[in-house]
Structure formats: C-alpha cells, structure tokens
C-alpha cells in the first residue's frame, strides 16, 4: 500500500519513512502535487516550526492538495505539528492559517516548564471507535512540544484522548477521516509502531 509522507523540508522525515518501510508498506515522499497519485493514506510528520512549514506547503501548492485529499474522504494522520495544522490558526513564530479541519487554535503550553518533553500515558475517553479501542490503556508515548492544540468548545468531542500536564491537553484528535496525535508514534517504540500499523490497517 502506498503511504504518502508530506515533506515540508523540516520534519523528521526519515523516522516516519523507515517506520512505514520497516512495517512492510510502501512509503512515498510527497514534495509536489503530482506525488499524490495512487496514494491511499497520508502522514504529515512532526518536528518543525508552524510558520515555516505552512509557508512551504503553500508555496509548493501541497496545502490545497491535502485539503482536496481530505475532502475525498482519504485518511490523514498528522503527528505533532502535523496535527496542529488541522487547526484554524497557529501562533508559532508568527500567526498562520491552518487547514481548519477542526475548530481551535495552536498556542504555547503554559505549564511550569514551557516544554513537554518525555513519555506519558494517554487518558482515552470512552469510545466506540474501532481504531481507538485497539490502543492499549497502559501504553506510553513520546511527546516533544511547546505548543498544543486548544480545541474550541464546540469541537471538544473530537479530542478523544488527552495527556495530563498541568492541565489536560489533547493527545489524540479524531474527526471523520482525520486523525491527529500530539505524541510521536514513530519514536514511541513498540506501542508507537503498533499505532502506525493500526492507522494504516484500520483507520478509514
């Protein structure tokens, strides 16, 4: 199965690429509009600054293509910054406009330390979602971020798991064919690799 990985010239592309490859799928790096051909699912990696990433996707016309892909009902996984892009507005290194798939804004963490770097268990809301049910409750995942997705009240139902920092911050956001995670599954060892395999096999 061809899995597209969006390259915005910042992300830890290689980590995602080798995880998908080692699972036995066919990772395709997407750098232009034409690379979307025959792609079944898309992964938008993390590690990157929002403004730089969005400017780049706009310039390369990939931004609009991702929206089209979503509107066709094709599954998208956004990791860390990749998930933040689903928001309406982002404020990392200047204001920028996201895809607007889910209502809310991406703003800085306001905890004792402004960075959350390390491993956490997730707090998963009760759900009938077949995909989410496969996530082990005791699993730990690796986080590395200083911004978070502040989901609007009206879209709260789409934040289906949180992580307990000084306040509860969304760790999984899921709406229709869109899945976003604040943690880095590609760097979360066995549980993370299972998560990516679960996305590829079961998320529709």
């Amino acid at each position, binding site marked *: 199965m061809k899995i597209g990985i969006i390259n915005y*010239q*910042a*992300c*830890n*592309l*290689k*980590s995602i690429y*080798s*995880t998908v490859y*080692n699972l036995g799928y066919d990772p395709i790096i997407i750098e232009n509009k034409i690379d979307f051909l025959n792609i079944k699912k898309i992964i938008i990696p993390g*590690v*990157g*600054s*929002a*403004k*730089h990433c969005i400017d780049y996707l706009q310039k390369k016309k990939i931004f609009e293509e991702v929206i089209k892909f979503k509107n066709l009902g094709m599954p998208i996984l956004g990791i860390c*910054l990749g998930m933040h892009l689903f928001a309406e507005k982002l404020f*990392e*290194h200047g204001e920028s406009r996201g895809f607007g798939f889910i209502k809310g804004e991406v703003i800085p963490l306001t905890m*004792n*330390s*402004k*960075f*959350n*770097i*390390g*491993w*956490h268990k997730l707090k998963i809301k009760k759900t009938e979602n077949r995909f989410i049910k496969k996530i082990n409750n005791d699993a*730990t995942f*690796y986080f*590395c*971020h*200083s911004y978070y997705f502040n989901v609007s009240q009206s879209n709260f139902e789409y934040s289906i798991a949180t992580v307990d920092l000084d306040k509860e911050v969304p760790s999984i956001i899921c709406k229709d064919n869109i899945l976003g995670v604040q943690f*880095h599954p*590609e*760097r*979360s*060892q*066995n549980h*993370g*690799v299972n998560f990516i395999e679960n996305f590829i096999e079961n998320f529709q």
Partner: protein
Amino acid sequence: MTYLRIIPSLLLKNKKLIKGVKFKNHIIAGNPKTTIQTFDSQKSDEIFLIDLDAYKNSKPDFEELKKITATINTPLTFGGGLNSIENIKLAFLNGADKVYISSAIQNNDKIVKDVSLIYGNQSIVGGINLMTDSNNFSMLNYDIDPISFAKKLVDLGVGEIKITFVNLEGSRKGFNLNICEKFLKNIKIPLIFEGGIGSLEDIEKAADAGVQNIALGTLLIFSDYNIFKIKQHLSNKGYKIRN
C-alpha cells in the same frame, strides 16, 4: 510529574562507539548500529549520540547516523560539529529527532533562532560542559558563570539543556548534586545531567535531588548493567519509571 528519562549517551569516532574518562583516554566500546538497536529494544527513553570526529573534520558522519536511525524507534539527539544551519539540516534529514548544540552557540548564539524558525524550539538541546570541584564550578574553555549561561540559553530559546560534569566523566563518583540543585532551582526547562554516574545508588541520589533526566555512559558500556536492569531496579524502588 512525568517519567524519569534514562538516556544512553554515546560517542562516535571513526564509525565505532568509544568511551573515555574526563573527555580523554578513549576506548572502543562497540558497533554503533547494533549497540543502539539494543538500547532501543531495552526501552531507553531516548538516545544521545555525539560525533567526536566532527569537531576536527567539520562534517559529522551523517552516513553512520542514517544507518543507525533507520532501524530504531527511540528518539535520538545528534550532536558534534553542528556549527552551521547546513549541517543541522543534514542531521534532521538523516534521522535525528533533536540536535545537540554546544560550542556553536558560544561562537554564534543566533544559530538557536535560525534553527528554531525551521524546526521549532523543542528540537534544540543546548550544551554546558562544566569543570567542578566540591565547591566551585566553571564552564570548560568559556569564561562565563554557568548559571548565567544556562539562563541565556533559555532566553535564546533552546528546549532542553544537557549539563555535563566533564571532570567526573568516567569517575563513577556520582553527579555533583549541589550543582545539580543550583541549576534545577534556577532553570525551568528540562535539564539532562551527565558525567559520573557509577552505580544504581548514584541514580537514586540524583533522582532524590530532583534530577529528572539522566544520561549514562560508563555505567552502560563498562558494566553488567543494562537499561532493562536499571529501570527494573528503579521501578522496584518506587521511582516513576516507564517499563
């Protein structure tokens, strides 16, 4: 409160891992790829890899980095000779999840801003190399108060700081906990300490002093301990450890 992070800290030289005492007397300590795969499967919380040759050669060994990172699923921070945005881009491109920058910041502090605009502040680990005796501490080859420099790193925008006790490295005497506490009191971003851990008791003492992130070299390379055993021990003692 998050889990303690136990982080193997490894040095790369001429495609081999090496380990030394006080930044000198290097001994070959294994094959980088297979050793790091082992740490990955033992559930290291992260991995630090520093290319020592890069300081001389001006270009880090990205080929080796690429080989290593393709087979693991543990966050890896790469450092050594990352003194230009070009080299830093290549580090990320070849599989680094974060970059460790130390002397380059001393020479050109603008580099933090340049990297953060592209990769975000969370991707940068700043470095402080300390020379210590029981009461005094200073930075290695850099004349500035270490705490002031740490504060400067925070203001510049690094996501974490790794503080290395250079003259304790390989000594198995444990961290200088007074100094750890000074940093922890003054600096509110994640701090990683390294240099001197020689026993499980040293790790417990560091954790009791509030150290959250512990980098290990000698203890892993030249003893019977492995990550799994260390974590099991700490977990049995009631520390918050990810198994």
